C-alpha cells in the first residue's frame, strides 16, 4: 500500500476563488492510502515545494498528489521536487483543479465538489503507480530548416554560426522567399534586395549550410534528436554543380510566353529560367510544363548553347535521406486569392491589383522596371485608391476571408502610399482604413509622416464596390468621419489582401505531428512562454508559419528558434519519456492491429520461441515496442483486442481505477 500525501494549491484566488481548498484537503484526507493532506497558497513556489519535501520525509510518503493547475504547467516542477525528496519522479500525480475546474465553474459548491472528485481519481491512480526510469537517446547534431525565406535564412545562419551543420529545404528554385519580391521595407525604407541578398550569399558561402533548392520534404519519421527525413529533390533538368548561371540558355530559349510567377504573372519568362538576378543558387531550371524538348522532344536549344554542358533532359527526381536532431518550420505565407471578392472587380480589371503586385510594379527589377504604370495600358496612374483589410478581419464567411488581422498591411500600405507621393507628387493617393494599426518601433511616426508630410489622404471607411468604366475604375466608398458616401474615379486600385499560411504547411504538420490552429498557422507550445517551439518535441517555428509577422519580428523569432535548436543540439544525450507502451507477449495474439494504428512506427513484430506447458516449444509472432520511438499516445492500448498492450504510467488498471473513483 502506498503512503500518499495530498497537496491542494490555492493558486492565489485562481483556484481558491471558486473552490473551497480547505474542504478539498479535508475530504481527501480519508481516501485509501492517504496519510497526509494539506493546502497552501502557491504549491509551485519555493515554500510550497519545501512543504512537499518536508512532508515526504516526515510522513515517509511514497506517492504525491498535487491538486493544482494543468500538468502541462507544473508537472515537471513537482516531479523535480519529488526527485529532490528522494522519490521516483513518476510517483507524482496532478489533479487539474484549475483549468478543468475552478476556471470553468462559477459556483463554489459545484467547483468544490468537482475538485474533490478529481482529487479522488488522482489518488486512486497514484495508488497503482510504479517507479519509472527514463531511457536515454543520442542526438544527431544536424538541423533541418524547411523554407528558405528570410525566416529560414536567418535561422540557418544563426545555427551554423554556433558550429552545427544545417540543411535548408526550399521548394522554389531559389531561396529568398517573399522578401526577395519586395521593393522597400518599412519603416526605414531600405531596399529589400540590398539587405536580403547579402544574407543569401552568406548562406551559399557558409560551409555548414547546404541548400536543397527546388526540393520538398516528403517523409518524416523518428523523434526529437533522431529524425529520419526524406527530401525530394525535384528534377530541374540542369546539373546544379556544373551550371554557372551565365544565362545564355535563358536568352536563347524560344519558349518565351510562360507567366513569370516571381512577378506574379505580370510579365513572362522563358521555359528555362533563373527567377531573379541574385538567385541563390544561381542555377537555371527548366519548367517541364512549358519546355518543348521535355514535352515532345523537339528543340534542345539550351543544351546546344550551354558552354558548360549542364543541361540534362533525362534528370530524374532524387530522394535524399538524412538524419536530423531538430527541425525548424519556416514555411511562410501567401496573400489569399482575391477571386471571391467580386465587389472589388479584381478579376474584371487588370488595374485592380494586390499589394504584392504593387511591390513588383514599383521594384526596379519588376515588370515595368520600377516605373509605376497601369498594367492595362502602361499609362501613369493619377489617382490611386488603396483598400485595407481585404479579407482580413472577415468573420462573416470563412471561405472568403480570414477572421484574423493580417498585421502587416497597415504598414506596407502606408509605405506604398508614401513612396508613391514621393516619386509622383502629381498623384492623388487615398487610403481607406478601418483602423490604422501601427504598433511597433517608429511605426506610428511612419504612418503619420505619410499623412502629414506626404499628403496621403487617409479616409476612415471602407470601399463598397469598384466598377470598371472606360479606362477608369469607379470607386464607391464611405467616409465615416464626414458621414458621406464618396465616388472616386481611380486609375489604379490596390487591395491589401489578407495573408494565409503556405499551402504546404498542413501536409507538413501531419508529417511532423505538429499541431496547427483552425487557420493552419502552427501552434506554439505556449503562446507567451514558449513561442518558438511546437508542442512536438524537436520541432521549432520560425516566421509567418506561426502567425502574421513583419520582417523585424520574423528575424527576431528566427534567432530565437535557432537558439532553441542550438540548445538541443549542444546536448549529447536526451532523456526520454518512460511513459511508453509495452506489450505482454504472453497475451499478444500477433494480430498486427497495434502496428497499423501506431502513428510513429514504433511497433514491429518478431517471431519468438515460447515454451509450452507440455514442454514443447512453439514459435509465435508477437509485438515489440521500440521505446525510443514510442511517444506514449496510447492508441495501441485502445486498439489491442487481447489487452496485451499497456502504457507505462497510464496502465489500463490505473485508468479504470480513476474512472471507478469518479463514479463512486
Amino acid at each position, binding site marked *: 500500500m502506498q503512503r500518499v500525501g495530498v497537496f491542494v494549491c490555492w493558486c492565489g484566488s485562481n483556484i481558491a476563488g471558486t473552490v473551497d481548498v480547505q474542504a478539498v484537503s479535508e475530504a481527501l484526507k480519508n481516501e485509501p492510502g492517504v496519510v497526509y493532506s494539506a493546502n497552501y497558497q502557491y504549491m509551485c513556489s519555493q515554500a510550497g515545494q519545501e512543504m512537499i519535501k518536508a512532508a515526504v520525509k516526515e510522513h515517509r510518503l511514497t506517492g504525491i498528489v498535487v491538486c493544482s493547475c494543468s500538468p502541462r504547467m507544473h508537472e515537471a516542477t513537482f516531479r523535480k521536487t519529488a526527485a529532490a525528496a528522494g522519490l521516483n519522479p513518476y510517483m507524482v500525480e496532478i489533479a487539474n483543479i484549475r483549468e478543468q475546474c475552478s476556471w470553468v465553474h462559477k459556483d463554489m459548491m459545484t467547483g468544490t465538489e468537482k475538485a474533490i472528485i478529481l482529487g479522488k481519481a488522482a489518488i486512486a491512480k497514484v495508488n497503482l503507480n510504479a517507479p519509472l526510469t527514463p531511457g536515454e537517446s543520442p542526438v544527431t547534431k544536424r538541423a533541418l530548416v524547411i523554407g528558405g525565406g528570410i525566416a529560414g535564412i536567418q535561422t540557418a545562419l544563426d545555427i551554423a554560426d554556433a558550429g552545427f551543420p544545417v540543411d535548408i529545404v526550399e521548394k522554389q528554385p531559389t531561396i529568398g522567399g517573399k522578401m526577395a519580391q519586395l521593393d522597400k521595407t518599412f519603416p526605414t525604407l531600405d531596399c529589400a534586395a540590398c539587405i536580403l541578398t547579402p544574407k543569401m550569399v552568406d548562406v551559399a558561402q557558409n560551409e555548414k549550410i547546404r541548400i536543397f533548392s527546388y526540393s520538398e520534404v516528403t517523409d518524416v519519421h523518428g523523434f526529437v534528436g533522431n529524425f529520419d527525413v526524406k527530401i525530394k529533390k525535384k528534377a530541374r533538368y540542369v546539373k546544379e554543380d556544373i551550371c554557372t548561371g551565365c544565362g545564355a540558355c535563358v536568352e536563347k530559349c524560344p519558349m518565351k510566353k510562360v507567366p513569370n510567377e516571381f512577378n506574379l504573372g505580370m510579365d513572362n519568362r522563358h521555359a528555362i529560367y533563373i527567377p531573379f538576378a541574385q538567385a541563390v543558387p544561381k542555377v537555371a531550371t527548366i519548367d517541364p510544363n512549358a519546355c518543348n524538348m521535355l514535352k515532345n522532344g523537339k528543340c534542345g536549344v539550351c543544351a546546344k548553347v550551354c558552354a558548360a554542358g549542364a543541361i540534362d533532359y533525362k534528370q530524374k527526381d532524387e530522394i535524399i535521406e538524412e538524419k536530423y536532431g531538430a527541425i525548424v518550420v519556416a514555411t511562410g505565407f501567401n496573400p489569399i486569392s482575391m477571386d471571391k471578392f467580386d*465587389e472589388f472587380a479584381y478579376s474584371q480589371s487588370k488595374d485592380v491589383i494586390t499589394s504584392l503586385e504593387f511591390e513588383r510594379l514599383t521594384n526596379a527589377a519588376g515588370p515595368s522596371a520600377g516605373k509605376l504604370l497601369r498594367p492595362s495600358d502602361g499609362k501613369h496612374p493619377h489617382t490611386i485608391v488603396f483598400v485595407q*483589410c481585404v479579407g482580413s*478581419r*472577415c*468573420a*462573416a*464567411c470563412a471561405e472568403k*476571408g480570414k477572421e484574423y488581422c493580417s498585421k502587416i498591411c497597415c504598414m506596407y500600405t502606408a509605405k506604398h502610399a508614401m513612396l508613391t507621393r514621393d516619386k509622383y507628387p502629381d498623384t492623388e493617393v487615398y487610403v481607406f482604413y*478601418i483602423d490604422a494599426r501601427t504598433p511597433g518601433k517608429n511605426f506610428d511616426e511612419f504612418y503619420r509622416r505619410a499623412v502629414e508630410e506626404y499628403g496621403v489622404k487617409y479616409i*476612415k*471607411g*471602407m*470601399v*463598397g*464596390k469598384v466598377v470598371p468604366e472606360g479606362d477608369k475604375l469607379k470607386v*464607391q*466608398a*464611405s467616409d*465615416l468621419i464626414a*458621414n458621406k*458616401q464618396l465616388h472616386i474615379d481611380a486609375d489604379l486600385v490596390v487591395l491589401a489582401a489578407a495573408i494565409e499560411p503556405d499551402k504546404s504547411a498542413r501536409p507538413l504538420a501531419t508529417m511532423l505531428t505538429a499541431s496547427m490552429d483552425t487557420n493552419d498557422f502552427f501552434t506554439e507550445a505556449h503562446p507567451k512562454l514558449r513561442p518558438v517551439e511546437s508542442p512536438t518535441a524537436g520541432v521549432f517555428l520560425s516566421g509567418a508559419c506561426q502567425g502574421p509577422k513583419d520582417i523585424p519580428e520574423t528575424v527576431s523569432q528566427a534567432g530565437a528558434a535557432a537558439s532553441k535548436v542550438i540548445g538541443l543540439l549542444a546536448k549529447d544525450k536526451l532523456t526520454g519519456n518512460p511513459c511508453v507502451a509495452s506489450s505482454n507477449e504472453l497475451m499478444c495474439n500477433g494480430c498486427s492491429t497495434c502496428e497499423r494504428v501506431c502513428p510513429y512506427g514504433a511497433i514491429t513484430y518478431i517471431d519468438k520461441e515460447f515454451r509450452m506447458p507440455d514442454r514443447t516449444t512453439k514459435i509465435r509472432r508477437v509485438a515489440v515496442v521500440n521505446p525510443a520511438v514510442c511517444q506514449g499516445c496510447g492508441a495501441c492500448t485502445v486498439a489491442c483486442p487481447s489487452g496485451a498492450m499497456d502504457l507505462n504510467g497510464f496502465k489500463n488498471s490505473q485508468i479504470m481505477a480513476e474512472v471507478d473513483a469518479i463514479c463512486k
Partner: protein
Amino acid sequence: MENNKYLREEILRMSGVNTSKCMKCGKCSATCPAYDEMEYHPHQFVGMVEMGDIEPLLKSESLYKCLSCFACVERCPRGVEPAKVVEAVRLVAVRRQGANRMTANDVPETIEEDTPQQLLVSAFRKYTK
C-alpha cells in the same frame, strides 16, 4: 432611457442581429445604393441601435428609403446584417398606432401600367402592420 433599452432589445430580438459584432468599418454604407436618399445610413442604424438611440431612427424617412436590396448584408465582413436592423426598426414604426406608411386608399394612384403585382404585395408587407 428605460424605454430605449426595451426597444433596443425588441429590435435585436426581431431582427436576430447582434449589433455588437460591428467593427465600424462602414462597408455597409459604402455599398448602399440608396445612401444619398437616406438621412441615417446603414452603419448609423447599426451603431445607433447598439447605443439605444432609436427614437430619431423611428421618426426618420430613412426607414422607407432602404431598398431592402441586402447589399450591406452580402458585403458586411462581420456578418452583422444591417438591412435586417433597418427592417426591424421599420416594423416597430409601423406597429405603432396609426403609423402605417400606406393605406389601401393610397394604392390606386401609385399603380402604373407595368407595376408588377409582386411590388404591391411587398409594399404592403413593408409599409403596413
